[in-house]
């Protein structure tokens, strides 16, 4: 009867998923590598040519950029050599040098901007997870009653409104017509990020609207999925017994229901957090918020291929990793799934 964990199935599962993750990452890397080189006319080559022809004024910088680009993409080499070079640089953490922010390296740029993105996304997504799920459970407890219908309608509309659209309206409303908040940016121009009360306050003022637009627009998705999970849970033998067989109070039942239904949602949270970088791009653009999304946008508009490529790799890596973690988390955290995967007995 003692809990004896037979570890093998879990490790097997973890290894299998790891394999799939690595396979996917390789496919993604291959796509990142091959696409610009395969598309007719080789846009990479022509852009590099264009860039080295004009745009950059000082001759030293032109020379340096040209050398750097040739070094980064090695377009003069045969494809397979290029690929080996691409991979070996990647393994060494070398993502190349940005054209737009020359001479900053892509890795440095990402390290510089990523924290701001995470600072925006992690609190907004987590809080929205918690509150959305809680409302979802309450709606499920009151299913088909008035409260439920109102919540369902609001959540459905919220789910249809992408965060950037919501962001546009928030700006129009709370920054233009009622100038309470600034219309964009991360902090007032001229200010330099540092840990002072003055800066933090100014930052928060810029932070609230993008935070709200992500927070509010993700409420709907969490709430709706939670509601449907919780409704299923409510029909289960154990919830029926807890509610009507034993007669536990409403408050405790909500608690239990949250516990049972939240487990699959935790996986969702991990995945969405992995999406942070990708998911914040549009919101950052709309708000001009200085995160990865913002420099991604600038990179695309300036055709800064090393930077575009680097950000793609980072986004896909975080996504895959978060997905992997969420899979393991699910197998580990849910006693039922743990039972199925690990075979506790």
């Amino acid at each position, binding site marked *: 009867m003692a809990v004896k964990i037979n570890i093998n199935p879990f490790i097997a599962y973890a290894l299998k998923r790891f394999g799939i993750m690595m396979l996917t990452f390789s496919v993604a890397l291959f796509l990142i590598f091959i696409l610009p080189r395969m598309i007719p006319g080789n846009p990479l080559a022509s852009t590099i040519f264009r860039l080295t022809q004009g745009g950059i004024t000082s001759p030293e910088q032109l020379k340096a950029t040209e050398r750097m680009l040739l070094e980064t993409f090695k377009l003069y080499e045969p494809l397979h050599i290029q690929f080996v070079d691409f991979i070996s640089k990647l393994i060494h953490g070398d993502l190349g040098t940005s054209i737009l922010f020359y001479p900053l390296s892509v890795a440095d740029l990402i390290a510089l901007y990523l924290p701001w993105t995470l600072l925006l996304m992690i609190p907004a997504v987590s809080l929205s997870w918690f509150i959305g799920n809680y409302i979802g459970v309450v709606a499920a407890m009151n299913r088909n009653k008035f409260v439920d219908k109102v919540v369902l309608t609001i959540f459905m509309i919220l789910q249809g409104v992408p965060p950037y659209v919501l962001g546009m309206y928030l700006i129009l409303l709370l920054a233009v017509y009622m100038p309470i908040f600034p219309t964009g940016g991360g902090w007032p121009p001229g200010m330099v990020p540092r840990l002072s009360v003055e800066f933090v306050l100014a930052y928060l003022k810029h932070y609230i609207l993008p935070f709200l637009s992500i927070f509010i627009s993700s409420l709907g998705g969490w709430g709706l999925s939670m509601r449907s999970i919780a409704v299923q849970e409510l029909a289960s033998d154990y919830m029926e*017994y807890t509610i009507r*067989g034993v007669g536990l109070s409403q408050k405790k039942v909500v608690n*239990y229901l949250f516990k049972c239904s939240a487990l699959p949602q935790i996986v969702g949270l991990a995945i969405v957090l992995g999406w942070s970088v990708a998911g914040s791009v549009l919101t950052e653009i709309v708000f001009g918020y200085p995160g990865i999304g913002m420099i991604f946008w600038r990179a695309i508009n300036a055709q800064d291929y090393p930077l575009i490529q680097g950000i793609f790799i980072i986004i896909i890596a975080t996504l895959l990793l978060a997905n992997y973690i969420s899979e393991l988390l699910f197998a580990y955290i849910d006693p039922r799934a743990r039972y199925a995967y690990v075979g*506790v007995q």
Partner: protein
Amino acid sequence: MNSLAIGEIMSILDVRNFRAYYFTKAGTVKAVDGVNLSIDKKTIIGIVGESGCGKSTLAKALSFNVEPPLKIVKGDIVIDGIKINDMTTDEIRRKILGIKVALIPQSAMNALVPTVKIRSFIKDVLKEKTGYTTLEIFELAVKRFKELNLPIEALDMYPFELSGGMRQRVLIAIATLLNPSLLIADEPTSALDVSTQKMVLETLYDIYRRGLVKSIIFISHDIATVRQIVDEIVVMYAGKFVEKGSTEEMINEPLHPYSKGLIFSILTPELIVRERVRKAKEVLLKGEPPSLINPPSGCRFHPRCPYAMDICRREEPPMIEVERNRFVSCWLYVKR
């Protein structure tokens, strides 16, 4: 525990002309349609019948586990002298469930929340119903688990970590922690293998013997199991009781044609020989139980009954007491 003053005059359970229907789109399912049951002494009663005859519905209704489409249509429920129909859902929840009456549901295997440890479940339930401190609750739980020979470690496990039989026994222990007067166990032994069945039966009997509950209603489709611990057997058919008597009499000499079929189909052939029934068709149940939306007229068993007479199709047979405490509802036994 001293609620019974002198002797046991107060009835533990009393229901009269009790009806509970499912109101569905397809029609009204008259799953429990006019049953009388009163328990006025410590006893274990078995209720048997084919699948779909309304046993679980009766169990749910008697333990107030009622939600749409199921509704109690008629009949008062009196438990321990308390008339319960007038109470609000909230009162029932706080004062009756687990205290006066407890249910082991048919789906007991999955009745415990999988993400909550047994210990916290017990704590949450008892906190609300008693006001004991956490420590007192755990002391009570440990004491009870020991009494019933259940492993204390089970308290710190999740339900799925327990085997099927253990889950069933733990649930019985939890449901009776507050010594309810009446325990209703719906098919507590089905879906278990024979040796596990025996352990569950022992636990049930243990609870009864130690006086932790006054009475048990043991519901099953399997007479062979039921007879091992019950004092009385009630046979249910299509939402009604058709026969009632002591276990001995019921097994040795079932009166109602349906009871005969039910009992002979599971018991040893020599009984059949003793009954001198030559035509096998008389004792073997043929056909399907009837629809409870449009039950047959008259005696509900008549389409399947080898003895069916004219009157059986027209009129419902009354429940008559053929001997002391021996009831049957069949025209064959009505003296006219």
